[in-house]
């Protein structure tokens, strides 16, 4: 739906340049959707429709951009919800701070901002209930501390990445390598763009097509056991079931190289999808990984019905940046050796 891509993958942009109107459409979709979401909150008796196959209907294209951060910023410590006035002031200030179309700051800063607002779809408001974090548990809105072992692992990994940043592909992030994105999930988080997904439902399955970076989650509902522990996947192995009108998805078997904010191969993710109005799904996920986090944590994110469709994001195919980063580093070394 949106047009773009990672800082690393300019090549993929060409495809999306042909859609000057899509941003506009998306904006409209979102503002309508947030109105609908607040309305739905006031009418909890709303009963979601069923698909032709009889499942509660989650089908359609959904989008999750929001300015509400995953974790509560220090300035809002002890303040889980903002007043309307505070929210307005925060949104205005925040949008000004992150605005890449600004021209103050000099030439070097300008270059850094060349990946400008045209490409972005970060939303233009907080979630409808004006929370200061997407995390709802623990109550401080912050990811619980890592276990000592996990902290050591994360720090060592960060140090290694810094020391080998341009030595080879492994020094770059998984996103820059087009392997997986920190927001593409599971769990799905708002990203800088392409925060769109299409849900389809067939007998025995819910399937989620995630635009970032063309990932598909096929979720069986037939109660089959998880894959054997030897089979590991970047997106994990998902199993779903219905609790009333809520789709509950359990995901395990993550590959050890996948780390969601510090998680490890023992990550057990539980996601809950509840259609709360014609135009909104309440999406909630709980991260449970006792070897990585000192306690489980939960975040809640509205998914808003979006206009348009999910387009192809050919990330790897357009990834000229990874080649250029490494070639540039080799050229710099050669020059330094002279």
């Amino acid at each position, binding site marked *: 739906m949106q047009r773009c891509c990672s800082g690393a993958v300019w090549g993929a942009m060409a495809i999306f340049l042909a859609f000057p109107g899509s941003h506009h459409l998306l904006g409209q979709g979102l503002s309508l959707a947030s109105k609908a979401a607040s309305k739905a909150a006031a009418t909890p008796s709303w009963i979601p429709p069923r698909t032709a196959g009889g499942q509660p209907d989650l089908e359609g294209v959904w989008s999750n951009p929001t300015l509400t951060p995953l974790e509560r910023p220090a300035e809002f410590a002890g303040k889980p919800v903002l007043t309307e006035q505070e929210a307005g002031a925060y949104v205005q200030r925040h949008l000004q701070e992150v605005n890449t179309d600004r021209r103050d700051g000099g030439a070097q800063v300008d270059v850094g901002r060349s990946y400008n607002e045209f490409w972005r779809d970060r939303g233009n408001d907080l979630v409808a209930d004006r929370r200061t974090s997407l995390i709802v548990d623990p109550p401080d809105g912050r990811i619980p501390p890592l276990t000592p072992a996990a902290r050591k692992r994360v720090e060592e990994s960060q140090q290694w990445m810094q020391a080998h940043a341009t030595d080879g592909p492994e020094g770059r992030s998984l996103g820059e390598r087009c392997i997986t994105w920190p927001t593409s999930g599971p769990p799905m988080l708002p990203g800088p763009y392409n925060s769109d997904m299409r849900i389809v439902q067939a007998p025995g399955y819910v399937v989620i097509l995630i635009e970032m970076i063309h990932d598909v989650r096929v979720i069986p509902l037939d109660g089959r056991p998880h894959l054997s522990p030897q089979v590991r996947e970047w997106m994990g192995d998902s199993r779903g079931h219905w609790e009333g009108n809520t789709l509950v998805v359990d995901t395990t078997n993550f590959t050890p190289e996948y780390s969601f904010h510090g998680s490890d191969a023992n990550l057990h993710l539980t996601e809950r999808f509840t259609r709360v109005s014609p135009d909104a799904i309440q999406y909630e996920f709980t991260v449970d990984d006792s070897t990585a986090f000192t306690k489980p944590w939960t975040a809640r994110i509205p998914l808003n019905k979006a206009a348009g469709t999910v387009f192809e994001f050919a990330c790897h*195919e357009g990834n000229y940046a990874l*080649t250029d980063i490494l070639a540039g580093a080799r050229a710099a070394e050669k020059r330094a050796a002279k």
Partner: protein
Amino acid sequence: MYWRNQLQISVLGAVAAAALLAPANAQTQTYKAPRTADGKPNLNGIWQTMNTANWDLQGHSAQASLVVPMGATGAEPAGLGVVEGGEIPYLPAAAEKKKENYASRLKLDPEVKCYLPGVPRATYMPYPFQIVQTAKVILISYEYDGAVRTVYMDNPGPAPVDSWMGWSAGHWEGDTLVVDVTGLNDQTWFDRAGDFHSDMLHVVERYTPVSANVLNYEATIEDPQVFSRPWKIGMPLYKHVEKNAQLLEFKCVEFVEELMYGPLRKQPTK
């Protein structure tokens, strides 16, 4: 006389092709597929071909691996061919290019770099794919590279832009799902033998249930820049009936990093 001969030959060709397809057609007429909740033939399931079309659409002998250390594990299995009439009708210049592609296939085949496979190649790669059918859209999710297509059943209009997997518009003709695919870029190949196309490619696919666990798949391929006439491939798609069948991940980007970026690695200081 020349034309008459040509006509006879093409009629004979058509008869031969019809004979080849006869068992499938006969089944089509008698078999009535189970229905979805909205009354359409139910194509939901995990499907896969059982042929060597991804190595070469045309008939071919087995041959040695291009990568010597792989020995027999990298060798190419033989195949009967899936092209109706046997030959792909290349224009002369395109036939030359196909030969060049074949000679350099280890370097040029987009599959080697884990690029999205395009259509119809995604169908007959040696990986399963899952059809997820609803009234408005049919999602086809392929195990290879997490490739995916959305088939729009409500006339989505012309392709807004070219892409690797194209723009798919579907409709039903009796029990057959017909998918019209346009908006394909010129970066994909049809197989590992260098068979190729331009961005003028137009593919019409037909998925017809012929028995409980078999779909008949046909694709008509048209590209006036590369072929002298439209041509057709056909093959059965078999359903995975294992109770625990599921698509697994084949995120191959990771597997081609050494190939694509290895030469750009920092060399150890001497």
